[in-house]
């Protein structure tokens, strides 16, 4: 009998109508919602009533007991504990190393170092004079995020040294160029970080499939399924009971292992989180459980559609490979095709003709004589502000297109639970795409302030200097501007250390979490439908 017509609240007058698939499809979302509300509303009722009175709870308990008996739960717990501890150990070492790296950089800012000498050789009267040496400090790097211990994400990308100064291809303009990555070990660079995100993404999904793949197919093979269903129990009850059983079998060991991991982090490795960070941690765990639920539902769906356990596990593993390994990585490739962008080199080269046009306009007017920049051409001082604006606009456009492409990739990645999960957790940990985009925005604003400073400098200091006194004053002014530029740099890096507020991070992660919830609901609905039509003989 159709499980939906057997429910008194959903009884349609004409049961033949329920077999009309078209009508059914239109009404399915409503029916599904009602089913869920029914269970949800029934939950306090189930708990208040004695356990033995509730069929769902009986079935769930039976599932959990079975999972304990066949060692699935103990094995899952041990595996998760070992892997989470190992992950926290390795990632905390990595964080410590990066933090030491940052502290060295910080300390090096107050080193008084020479890195260049300007010498003037004046040919009159054999005078050779050596003048001021420029003191250049190492470009500042951003402090690593503490929560990168859980999800390294894009933290190493944001750790690169950034120099805001001369544009890469157009010397009169101001741009920002990324320096080397702080990680020089090539194996570390190419490996996926074995962080909590990685462990959960791979292991929890596999464990979920393992808990769920034989929930229905196994019982069908053993013959107990038809025995169970021949009694006064609805199919829906059986499915929900198994779902709850499998979910608890996975969620409870996971939470216990995660808590052990947190205790280890705090007591042994000395990581302490503050108030807001605890909220992030809690949300990461919640996201992980939601992620596990997706695969439990998927496992149940596959189990309901499979005739044997062997078929069930084969299909389940194929889906796993597709959803976790292939799809997220394919979105990278797809977005690159959908939104082709020039490489950084190409873009930098493309800015040169724009600048040269302005230069030639100034040259045509003949108002000043320029000087040569090797590799760029003749540069006229009066063209500089305009060139800076053009270069700035071109750079901003390029960045906007890149960020747009990244957002598209993120949207496409929601077609895979693993993709949505990765984006959500990295954002919650402060090492995700949202944080990265905010980081780029801060760099852009820093560069804009340097442009303003450069324009101001140009307007204040003239290059036609008549005598010694004026030269001295000009030198002083230059030193002043140099100091201002350094201060702007320091301000920029202070701002980079600040992580965005948890509200913003959660806001970014919310659509991904919603995608996970939608996946779970969809899989469960499909599992219910499949089980409803399944032949249990």
């Amino acid at each position, binding site marked *: 009998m159709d499980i939906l017509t057997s429910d008194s609240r959903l009884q349609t007058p004409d049961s033949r109508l329920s077999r009309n698939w078209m009508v059914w499809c239109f009404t399915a979302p409503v029916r599904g919602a009602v089913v869920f509300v029914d269970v949800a509303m029934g939950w306090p009722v189930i708990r208040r009533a004695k356990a033995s009175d509730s069929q769902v709870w009986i079935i769930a308990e039976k599932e959990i007991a079975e999972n304990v008996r066949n060692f699935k739960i103990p094995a899952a717990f041990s595996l998760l504990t070992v892997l989470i501890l190992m992950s926290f150990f390795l990632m905390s070492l990595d964080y410590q190393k990066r933090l030491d790296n940052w502290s060295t950089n910080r300390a090096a800012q107050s080193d008084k170092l020479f890195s260049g000498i300007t010498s003037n050789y004046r040919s009159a009267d054999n005078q050779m004079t050596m003048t001021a040496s420029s003191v250049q400090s190492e470009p500042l790097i951003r402090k690593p995020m503490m929560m990168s211990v859980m999800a390294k994400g894009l933290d190493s990308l944001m750790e690169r040294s950034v120099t805001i100064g001369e544009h890469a291809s157009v010397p009169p303009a101001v741009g920002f160029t990324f320096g080397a990555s702080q990680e020089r070990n090539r194996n570390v660079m190419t490996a996926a970080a074995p962080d909590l995100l990685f462990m959960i993404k791979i292991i929890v999904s596999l464990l979920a499939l393992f808990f769920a793949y034989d929930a229905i197919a196994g019982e069908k093979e053993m013959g107990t399924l038809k025995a169970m269903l021949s009694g006064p129990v609805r199919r829906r009850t059986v499915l929900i009971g198994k779902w709850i059983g499998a979910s608890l079998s996975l969620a409870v060991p996971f939470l216990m292992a995660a808590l052990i991991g947190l205790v280890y982090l705090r007591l042994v490795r000395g990581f302490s989180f503050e108030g807001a960070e605890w909220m992030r941690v809690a949300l990461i765990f919640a996201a992980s459980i939601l992620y596990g639920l997706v695969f439990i539902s998927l496992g149940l769906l596959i189990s309901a559609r499979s005739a044997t356990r062997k078929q069930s596990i084969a299909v389940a593993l194929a889906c796993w490979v597709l959803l976790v390994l292939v799809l997220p990585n394919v979105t990278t490739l797809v977005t690159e095709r959908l939104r082709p962008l020039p490489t950084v080199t190409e873009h930098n080269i493309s800015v040169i003709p724009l600048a040269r046009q302005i230069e030639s306009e100034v040259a045509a007017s003949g108002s000043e004589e320029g000087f040569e920049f*090797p590799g760029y051409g003749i540069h006229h001082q009066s063209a500089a502000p305009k060139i800076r604006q053009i270069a700035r606009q071109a750079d901003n456009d390029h960045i906007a297109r890149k960020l747009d492409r990244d957002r598209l990739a993120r949207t496409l990645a929601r077609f895979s639970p693993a993709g949505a999960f990765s984006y959500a957790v990295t954002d919650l940990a402060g090492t995700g795409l949202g944080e990265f985009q905010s980081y780029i925005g801060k760099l852009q604003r820093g560069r804009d302030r340097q442009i303003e400073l450069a324009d101001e400098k140009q307007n204040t200091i003239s290059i036609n200097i008549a005598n010694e006194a004026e030269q001295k004053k000009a030198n002083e002014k230059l030193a002043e501007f140099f100091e201002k530029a350094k201060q702007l740099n320091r301000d920029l890096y202070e701002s980079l250390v600040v992580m965005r507020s948890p509200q913003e991070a959660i806001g970014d992660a919310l659509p991904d979490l919603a995608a996970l919830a939608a996946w779970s609901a969809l899989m469960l609905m499909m599992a219910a439908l499949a089980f409803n039509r399944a032949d249990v003989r």
Partner: protein
Amino acid sequence: MLLTIAVKEFRERLFRLRFVSTLIALIVLVSATVIALAYEHRTQADDYNRRVEFHRREVEKTDFNLMRVDRPAPALSSLFNGLGANAPDQIELSDSAPPESRQTIETEATEAMFPAIDLSFCIRVVLSLVALLFSYDAITGEKESGTLKQVLSNSVSRATLLAAKWIALTATMGVLVIAALASGALLARLLPGSPFVIRASDALALLMISAVGILLVSVFTILGILVSSLVPSSSSSLAILMLAWVMMVFVFPNASPYLAVWLSPAQTYQQASRSEKQINSEMYAQLKERNAKGAEKVRDEKLKGPEMQEVARQIRKAWNEERKESLNRLREDYRARLRQQEKKSALIAALSPYGSATQAMAALSDSGMESDDRFFRLARIFDDDQLSAHSRLRAEMSKAQRPSPPVFTYESTPLGERLSVVAFQLSVLIAYNAALFIASLWAFRRYDVR
């Protein structure tokens, strides 16, 4: 007898739905991957040509104290990623500083989140899983269906049966490996505008890579047979194998670099950079002193114009060489320690057959760490030999008489060198095959077939 059973099993498996569906799915996956990678390859090839042209013009314009040499993407880039965007493809050579390597391709956020998959991934990850799925019930499946005791009761030795199963399964998987590589290569060749041109050495490299792939899937096959003959039921066999697979393919290879960092720490980048800057600063202080002495000399000897500039140039030249040498020494020291760390992590990873296969495939496709090192070595040789010769000539002749600057062309690693690099990894794979086969023999002899 062995061959008969093997051929029978092979034919049985070949014409089953699960094999055909796997083959089709594999080819679809490979095609999607290759289409994307070929596009990447073309972009990189164009970028390389553009850069080479740009540098050529730049060198003519500057007074040639800075030269940039580039490396093209490896020939098999349409199929294998290797180090990918993390590999420096440009090295800056100058008179006054040691060679500096750069990556011209900036790592994008999306790629950092999800690195692109390549053909190597398809074979190593997907086919190893398929190998396990085909072999986990090799013994337990037959036992459960009752055919095992029937076969063994017909004077077929256990060793023969085991070997036959192994050969049949490996041959089945071998078909998949070769299908993947062949379809990938064919598609890469046929795509319009594809830069995928194979010479003989690359074709041989591809053959070697397929051999490595077959060795890897054979390891997983025999592992599946081993576990299958150790445990009584199919589902526990699969559970154990899945655990082993996850450990070998995901946990261990990604954890080993971090383990190596713990076991063999090196200076951090900032520490090395700071020491370098301190030495640099000392050198500049020295330059100031020497220039002051030079100024005195000019004043005493009342030198003018070109002679004065000659003094300055001599001072600068000697100082440049000294600075370059001391900076080189510092960098070499840092690089040596880093390399030790990298070697350790490579060694740890190579202890597992999956890790060895990864390294072997990367080296054979000329996209691994070895080709990276080779590029650096060749650039150093170019710097020491040709560029210094040219700068000497430059100093002696006038601008008009100067010969054009030497051109650097990167040649990909010759096949012999690639093979010698992967000798260790190949022996690891063969050793695992042998050891696991012996273990399976022992386990199967003790197996209760009733």
